[in-house]
């Protein structure tokens, strides 16, 4: 690392293009929607910034507030499911043999490289009432019925009158399935890298001192992986909150999230000021989440420093 004194020309030649690009195509555009969010439509495409707070006030209307609440709820449930499924999967990769590890990682990463739209579209075939998931469930139901008959328990009617296919498309469950599907690789990787760095001797010490398997997992393994789990939760939650495609294709207009309302303001309703205000609200929510994570990291390193 060196100071820029004496190397000013090199420094500016290297840093100026990025700085100019980001200012022009990132900061200025965000500035524009910030100004629009305090504006009013004069004509269809002309917006005057009058510093009105009406657009933000409209976010507090029950209809929009309920939608924002639903987005947070769906993103939260999806993140929790991702963590519960992702943790054991990360654990398997982290403790796999030296040879198997890169292949298992590749196995998890490959779907992530596949186009998001295509992956979401692929779920339409799985989740439909006559889709593949219901085919599997029907098959399992029939096996269970046969098993019940074999035991002679038909009279108890434990399985109900017949198989009713699950309706997932157009329901919150379908959207959650979709979000979990597209975010799972994001959840696994940070947990994996935290577990990878873990010192096995701590686990051994815990067992030597008489702790059981579950106790060791709860008291040693999970706390050690906590920074990875927190990172995983944040980088799963943020994109989940802003999901557009999943609620759009799998929710079928019944389970809209924040991004769908934003899209409608720009593509159909032509209410750019209101759309800008919601976009910025989503952006602020993202910043708050990232700040929380920094606080967590700071608190954690302070605590560890004291130990």
């Amino acid at each position, binding site marked *: 690392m060196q100071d820029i004194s004496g190397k000013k020309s090199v420094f500016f030649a290297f*840093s100026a293009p990025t700085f100019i690009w980001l200012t022009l*195509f990132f900061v200025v555009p965000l500035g*524009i929607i910030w100004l629009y969010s305090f504006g009013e439509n004069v004509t269809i495409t002309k917006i005057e910034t009058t510093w009105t707070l009406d657009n933000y006030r409209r976010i507090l209307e029950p209809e929009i507030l309920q939608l924002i609440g639903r987005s947070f709820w769906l993103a939260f449930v999806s993140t929790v499911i991702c963590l519960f499924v992702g943790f054991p999967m990360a654990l398997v990769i982290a*403790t796999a*043999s030296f040879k198997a590890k890169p292949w298992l990682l590749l196995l998890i990463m490959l779907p992530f490289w596949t186009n998001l*739209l295509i992956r979401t579209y692929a779920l339409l075939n799985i989740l439909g009432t006559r889709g593949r998931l219901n085919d599997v469930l029907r098959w399992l139901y029939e096996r269970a019925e046969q098993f019940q008959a074999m035991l002679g328990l038909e009279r108890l009617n434990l399985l109900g009158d017949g198989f009713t296919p699950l309706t997932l498309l157009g329901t919150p469950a379908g959207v959650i399935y979709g979000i979990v599907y597209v975010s799972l690789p994001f959840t696994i990787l940070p947990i994996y890298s935290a577990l990878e760095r873990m010192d096995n001797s701590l686990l051994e010490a815990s*067992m030597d001192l008489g702790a059981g398997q579950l106790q060791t997992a709860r008291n040693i393994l999970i706390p050690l992986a906590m920074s990875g789990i927190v990172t995983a939760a944040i980088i799963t939650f943020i994109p989940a909150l*802003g999901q557009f495609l999943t609620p759009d294709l799998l929710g079928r207009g019944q389970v809209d999230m924040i991004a769908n309302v934003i899209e409608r303001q720009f593509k159909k309703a032509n209410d750019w000021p209101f759309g800008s205000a919601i976009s910025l609200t989503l952006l602020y929510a993202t910043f708050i989440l990232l700040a929380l994570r920094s606080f967590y990291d700071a608190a954690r390193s302070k605590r560890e420093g004291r130990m």
Partner: protein
Amino acid sequence: MFGIKRSSNKAGPFEYSRKWSLRSVFLIGSIFLYAPIVVLIVFSFNDSRRGGNVLWKGFTTKYYGKAFQNDELMLAFGNSITIAVISTIVSVILGALTAVVLWRFRFPFKPLYEGLVALPIVIPEICMGVSLAMFFSAMGWLSTGDTAWPFNLTNIIIAHITFSFPFAAMVIRTRLQSFNREMEEAAKDLGASEFQVFKDILLPHMKPGLIAGALLAFTLSLDDFVITFFTSGPNTITFPVKIYSMVRFSVTPEINAASTILIIMTLILTFVALRYQRVDS
């Protein structure tokens, strides 16, 4: 170090990867990740015109022919590749410059600069798409859609560079961290100029990072739907945007066929990338 490697059949306490309970979670998780893609590919061969995703009606490859004959789809595909190539080239150059600056120099407001570069990675896609759309509209650049190819794609290319180059910078910076500064000093002691050091020592060391960054930028560009959806005009359609409008219209095996082609392309790219990394290490 006991418990790391054991030849007995019973799994040791920390060999989580050998426990059947965890293994089955991993297996089910993998099926969960792969089944939709496999089903999508299988149904691209389904001989059924309407409701192509519900019932299996026999094997056919005609939908691949149909996809290739769909002019709009092929135009969109060409657009996607063009955008990806141009945005990758610019992203790698900007990414490399950014990575070198962040790795090499200490300067005032560095954390701010670093944060600014990382921001496009973390902010929700929809916010970026919307803000760029408003920017292009405010600048009166929407009419670029009517200019000659490939200039009609300018807006989309700008958008793609903006979200791809920070990723490229991240990858290249990681590679730079393993650079041995003594090499540079030795070259300078032997009379090499600043530019010669850059060209003959730093650049060759950066090469795997540049390739990895380029492949990442390329896939990100090919993959993007949301930001492109907002910045594209009626005459500038990319592959994902076209597929989206086809899905909204009706679900046909043709979409599955087109998707399969893209999946296979991505697979090939990934394996090329892995090949490169292996050769280098």
